């Protein structure tokens, strides 16, 4: 006698701890094997792109904090670079370095969350993530010191940054940079060779380099597949062209490699920060702020808060912790953008999810989703 079986549909989410937000994964199962994976998104849709068309260029900066809420600094940065390209504003040298420092601090904070939550998904419930939270808090303290907020920073401005760092920032940051390598060693001891993590993630969710490129995947996910593509090297912005760092590349393109690439990137971030804190020059931090000797690049009577870029379009991309974050803006000469589009890495990195999950088990699907490191605020915008 043969048993008759039929496919079974399981909804992972929208309220599920492993979906990292309000995201739904519809898995069709044959026994424990996944035969189809379908993503349902839009639960966190806030209509960012349409909202932006109603607001001036500066008013949109705090909204970019809220797309990728684990990496607000890089969200700010990508947007202001796009506006600067549109308006033809060149930020001063010190602002470029401050932007670099803040982006790298943000990358460390975001990656520490990514690997902590990934360990959560692998079953190391809360212990690793608490280690990472401790150090992330210290970075957020630095953000609070510089701009007053921890998560929704709103620090970058068109033409520079909102204000210079306070005098106590540099000693605190230097001290923190001495501590963080030790902390990173600790993370590696805790997770990198841990047999459970290796067993859960080696050879799971493999994405070859061709598949990754075909799906426009970017960031640590692409690099784990063996493609050395980093916007910081390929199309340098801020002060990255003056810095010496390596691109962390994986070989297998599986979940474990993504995790290893993130840890290696955190090392590189610390390496960049060490250089940047030393090399940062003195000077003005915003091209729009008139000083005794320098007149603003933007002519009166419109200040930067009522900036009206000339007609045209601009695209700016940066390497956010999750991948290539791009902002595409069209100006019709008015005070608000005519079109505002976000190329968000979280959303595009999800495209090969079905490819990676079909054929594996439910438990693996959770780990694969964790390794993509999505932020649902950025997926849905």
């Amino acid at each position, binding site marked *: 006698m043969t048993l008759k079986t039929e496919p079974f549909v399981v909804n992972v989410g929208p309220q599920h701890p492993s979906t990292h937000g309000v995201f739904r994964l519809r898995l069709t199962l044959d026994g424990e094997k996944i035969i189809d994976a379908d993503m349902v998104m839009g639960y966190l849709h806030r209509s960012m792109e349409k909202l932006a068309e109603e*607001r*001036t260029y*500066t*008013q*949109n*900066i*705090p*909204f970019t904090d809220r797309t990728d809420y684990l990496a607000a600094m890089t969200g700010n940065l990508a947007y202001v670079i796009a506006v600067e390209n549109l308006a033809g504003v060149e930020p001063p040298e010190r602002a470029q370095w401050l932007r670099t420092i803040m982006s790298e601090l943000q990358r460390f904070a975001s990656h520490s969350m990514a690997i902590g939550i990934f360990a959560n998904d692998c079953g190391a419930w809360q*212990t690793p993530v608490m*280690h990472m939270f*401790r150090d992330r*808090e210290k970075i957020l*303290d630095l953000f*609070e*010191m*510089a*701009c*007053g*907020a921890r998560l*929704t920073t*709103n620090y970058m401005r068109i033409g520079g940054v*909102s*204000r210079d760092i*306070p005098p106590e920032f540099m000693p605190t940051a230097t001290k923190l940079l001495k501590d963080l390598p030790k902390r990173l060693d*600790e993370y590696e*001891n*805790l*997770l*990198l*060779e*841990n*047999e*459970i*993590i*290796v067993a859960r993630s080696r050879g799971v969710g493999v994405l070859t380099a061709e598949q990754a490129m075909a799906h426009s995947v970017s960031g640590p996910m692409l690099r784990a597949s063996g493609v050395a593509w980093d916007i910081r090297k390929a199309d340098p912005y801020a002060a990255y062209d003056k810095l010496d760092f390596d691109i962390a590349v994986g070989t297998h393109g599986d979940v474990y490699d993504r995790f290893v690439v993130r840890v290696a990137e955190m090392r590189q971030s610390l390496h960049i920060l060490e250089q940047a804190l030393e090399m940062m020059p003195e000077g003005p931090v*915003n091209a*729009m*702020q*008139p000083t005794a000797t320098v007149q*603003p690049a933007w002519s*009166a*009577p*419109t*200040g*930067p*808060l*009522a900036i*009206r870029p000339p007609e045209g379009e601009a695209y700016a991309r940066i390497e956010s912790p999750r991948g290539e974050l791009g902002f595409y803006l069209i100006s019709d000469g008015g*005070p*608000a953008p005519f079109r505002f589009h976000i190329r968000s890495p979280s959303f595009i990195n999800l495209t090969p999810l079905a490819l990676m999950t079909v054929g594996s088990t439910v438990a693996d699907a959770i780990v694969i989703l964790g390794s993509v490191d999505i932020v649902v605020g950025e997926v849905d915008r």
Partner: protein
Amino acid sequence: MLGMVKAIGTTLRAAFRKPVTVQYPTEKKDLPHRSRGFPVLLWDFEKTEPFCTGCQVCARYCPVDCITVTMKDNPKFAEGKSKRKKIVDKFYLDYARCMRCDICVEVCNFDAIVMNNTWEGVELSRYDRQDLVMDLPELLRQSRTGDLEDPFREPMGVAHSGWAPKAGEEDEQAAQAAQPAAAAGEAAKEGGEG
């Protein structure tokens, strides 16, 4: 097996570490000077009136439209006690909508509004959403009573509008900008009707 032993070793070492957390409601960490709580208005102790002239620049630049301001003639100006010709009449700030982005502080030409950098600026739970709409006395309360000891006042709006205060000139500037024509000019310049 070695990996597991290393991981357990790390966990064991962490067990003997001093905790980095504090017992929050009873024990509070120091907030940095720039900490951004909800915005509050400042009180001018010299002239015993608010710094705010009701020019509505903050209301116009608020990305979430949470500010409503009206302006009136300053009675103290007629008496010659103040150089502010116009002064704020009503000021409503909806803390439920505010997203603490700091833009109102940056555009203010009179340094009249600051982000609250005390714990009171973030501990604001209420039972009714309507109670989060703050009126003028409530917004001025912390500055008037001295609870807001050391607000972070940086002439940011100034930097953005190209207007730079010099020591001792603040009164003059305030009076100048409070003149109707000048105020209108200032507003047009600031806003560009964005």
